[in-house]
């Protein structure tokens, strides 16, 4: 992983410097257009800086940490967070650290586990940049303005950001900058890149180049995640404010297009899945276990993509009813007698583009009149000393005592006893190569002297006429009781019907286990 990353980084660095060099040679003060391209590349370059910075700073840590490849760990952390990003949540801090640990441990096997965890946390915290107020990074770069004046500017960005999750928890998400750095493609269109990645994957799979195919599949998954994230934001925004969107045309069109898109992707990815499965099965016979494993991983990745698209689709379907409910609430109410201030349209929206200094004057004015009033405290010294000297009242930590539950034993009303069940099971424990007729089994049951036993045997035999193959398959049973009717009638004083042939079938437990892992 590391050599690859380093090569990517060096490559982008060289291209940047060469292009900058030629630009400078061509004209001493390049125009704003050329400068803008340079600024964009400088920003892209800045996104990789925190990763390099880790390796530069590891020497300053208390302890000998030079064995750890910090940039590699950081990139792995960004990978982990990106892959765990879903609609509702992002990745959990501890989960990410836990998934990093094997890699950390592999880099320095001799070191204690506590140190490994410390390194993993240090890397993750530095990717969030916990020490700064904004929890982000800042890079300074210079550009020439349209008037030819050189201006230094601050570029602020984040790689991993913390977002609120359900129940007040904090989750991690990778920013677009991070995904772009990670995938190595800057300023690309999500959809077209996704299609490109999938076409590439299909070609690779059909030619049997699985290693490349896996790389492409992983890239496709990053794209899918990025795309889903963009849609999530869209739906959130429309849910918040029904008036901000064109409910007549744009929204239904958008939902239809997105649904079509999901259907299209779903079909496409299923086709890929079928192809890879075929490739995997061929790989198993011709090329050996490594190929099979790689193909299996590929199946997992594409399945994950499909799962994400399905999730996306269900979100899209929820949007319509929500819009209608909001429409009812907002549009069909009687108009108010007097008009109020449009707080968003007339205050908040015009305020945000203003320079910070001016905007602060407006927000200060709002705060001064809008925060309410506070009654200043006026205490007497006598009261204060009393208050300070009163011991705090002890708190009850455990709460009220739970009442002892009143349990009543339920009577055992089973038709057959445990012993009878055991005897019947013993009778029906037939060797797989010697099935028996029901009549013979009944006769043997009668010989045991228990009048109820033949009933139980007959019941079990009838039950076995439709054996639960699916359940046995899922539970990994090795054998299964079955009964077949070959047309012979049962000649018995107590029972009627067919004289079933009862036998034991052996199941291929190992094969089933293999199939199960594949299905999962």
């Amino acid at each position, binding site marked *: 992983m590391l050599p690859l990353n380093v090569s990517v980084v060096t490559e982008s660095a060289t291209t940047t410097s060469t292009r900058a060099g030629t630009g400078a040679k061509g004209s001493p003060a390049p125009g704003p257009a050329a400068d803008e391209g340079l600024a964009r590349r400088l920003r892209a370059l800045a996104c990789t800086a925190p990763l390099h910075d880790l390796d530069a700073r590891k020497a300053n840590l208390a302890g000998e940490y030079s064995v750890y490849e910090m940039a590699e760990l950081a990139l792995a952390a960004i990978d982990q967070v990106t892959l765990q990003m879903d609609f509702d949540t992002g990745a959990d*801090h501890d989960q990410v650290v836990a998934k990093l640990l094997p890699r950390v441990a592999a880099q320095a096997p001799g070191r204690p586990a506590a140190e490994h965890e410390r390194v993993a946390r240090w890397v993750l915290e530095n990717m969030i940049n*916990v020490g700064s*107020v*904004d929890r*982000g990074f800042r890079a*300074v770069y210079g550009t020439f303005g349209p008037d030819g004046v050189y201006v230094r*500017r*601050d*570029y602020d960005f*984040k790689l991993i*950001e*913390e977002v*609120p999750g359900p129940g007040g928890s*904090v989750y991690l998400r990778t920013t677009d900058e991070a995904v772009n750095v990670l995938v190595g493609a800057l300023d690309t269109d999500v959809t077209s890149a996704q299609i490109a990645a999938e076409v590439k994957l299909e070609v690779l799979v059909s030619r049997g180049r699985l290693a490349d195919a896996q790389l492409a599949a992983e890239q496709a998954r990053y794209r899918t995640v990025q795309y889903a994230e*963009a*849609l999530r*934001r*869209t739906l*959130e*925004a429309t849910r918040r*404010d029904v*008036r*901000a*969107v*064109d409910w007549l045309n*744009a929204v239904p*069109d*958008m939902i239809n*297009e*997105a649904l079509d*898109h999901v259907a299209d992707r779903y079909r496409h990815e299923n086709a890929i899945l079928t192809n890879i499965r075929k490739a995997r099965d061929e790989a198993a016979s011709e090329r050996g276990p490594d190929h099979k494993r790689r193909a299996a991983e590929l199946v997992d990745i594409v399945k994950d993509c499909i799962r994400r698209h399905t999730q996306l689709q269900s979100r899209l379907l929820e949007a319509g009813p929500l819009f209608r409910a909001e429409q009812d609430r907002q549009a069909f109410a009687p*108009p*108010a007698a007097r*008009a*109020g*201030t*449009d*707080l*968003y*349209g*007339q205050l*908040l929206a015009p*305020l*945000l583009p*203003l320079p*910070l200094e001016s*905007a*602060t*004057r407006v*927000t*200060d*004015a*709002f*705060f*001064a009149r*809008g*925060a*309410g*009033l*506070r009654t200043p405290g006026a205490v007497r010294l006598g009261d204060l000393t009393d208050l300070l000297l009163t011991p705090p009242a002890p708190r009850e930590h455990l709460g009220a005592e739970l009442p002892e539950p009143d349990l009543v034993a339920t009577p055992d009303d089973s038709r057959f006893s445990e012993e009878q069940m055991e005897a019947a099971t013993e009778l029906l424990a037939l060797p797989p190569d010697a099935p028996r007729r029901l009549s013979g089994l009944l006769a043997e049951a009668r010989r045991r002297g228990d009048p109820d036993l033949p009933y139980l045997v007959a019941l079990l035999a009838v039950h076995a006429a439709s054996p639960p193959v699916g359940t046995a398959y899922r539970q990994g049973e090795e054998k299964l009781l079955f009964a077949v009717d070959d047309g012979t009638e049962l000649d018995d004083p107590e029972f009627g019907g067919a004289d079933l042939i009862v036998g034991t079938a052996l199941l291929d437990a190992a094969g089933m286990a293999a199939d199960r892992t594949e299905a999962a």
Partner: protein
Amino acid sequence: MTDFATEPEPEDGAGTARQPVTPADASDAARLVSFGLQPKLAPARDADYTELLRRYRDEPAFARLADAVATGLGLIVLEVSTRTGMALAAAEDSVFAVRMGDYARRASADSADRFLHGLAHLACAAMAFPRPEDLADDGYIGRITVNGVDSFVRQACRKLAERAEAEGENTDPATDAPGLEAAWRVYTRRSATGATKDARRLAGSTTGIIAKAVAFLADSGFLQRTGDDAGGTYRTTARYQLQVRDMAGSAAMAELLELGVVPVSDGTASLLPPRDEDGLELAPDASLPFHS
């Protein structure tokens, strides 16, 4: 206090028909104001309060006396009714006014923090009363959540970022002039939340700042906490509507006009008509497929 009580009476011109104002009346009027200073106290829950409100409604002389007490203390009377009780707002230089420096310590040192705290209050109001009709309608109850306010402002900021990008504008501020940075960038830059050692909300994050604002508003009797979902859910009270409508909204608007920004409105929702490119802005990222 007695001066106040006796002075308005002769001006009334009906002194002969009514009882002269006594010190007991002045005390009652001051008591009504003191009830008004407890914003979380509901008039319906207190028989004395209800009785004083009735007197305010029925006796003009008493009403003027109570108004005078409030004015003398540096308070502005917004409304006196059984619905809101005596709704009071602090005048600018009054001892009851809340100052930004007392509200948040960092705000006095850091201009970005000062802005973010103010913006949080404005955003809460905008989210609570999304349409002008909602602000005007006395029966309207707004509902907000901490996370909802945050993502609402973030969304607005993202639109501006996209517009700036579409216009090819470089919004990165000059290094030596942070005051000229566009306001939305300050918000975008600040992280939404953050893990802390003691599992509390990160005070400097935007949700932390908004949570502080709503908690403060709840203490002022402007919001009522209804749940813990989405960072805390709240509903508005009649007092908040009055305060925003009659005090804060107009003050901020006047400041904005002074800055030369004239927001045009014909009395309907400005958000309503989606402009050509705005129709697509429900797609917050330019890279979305349904743009093309």
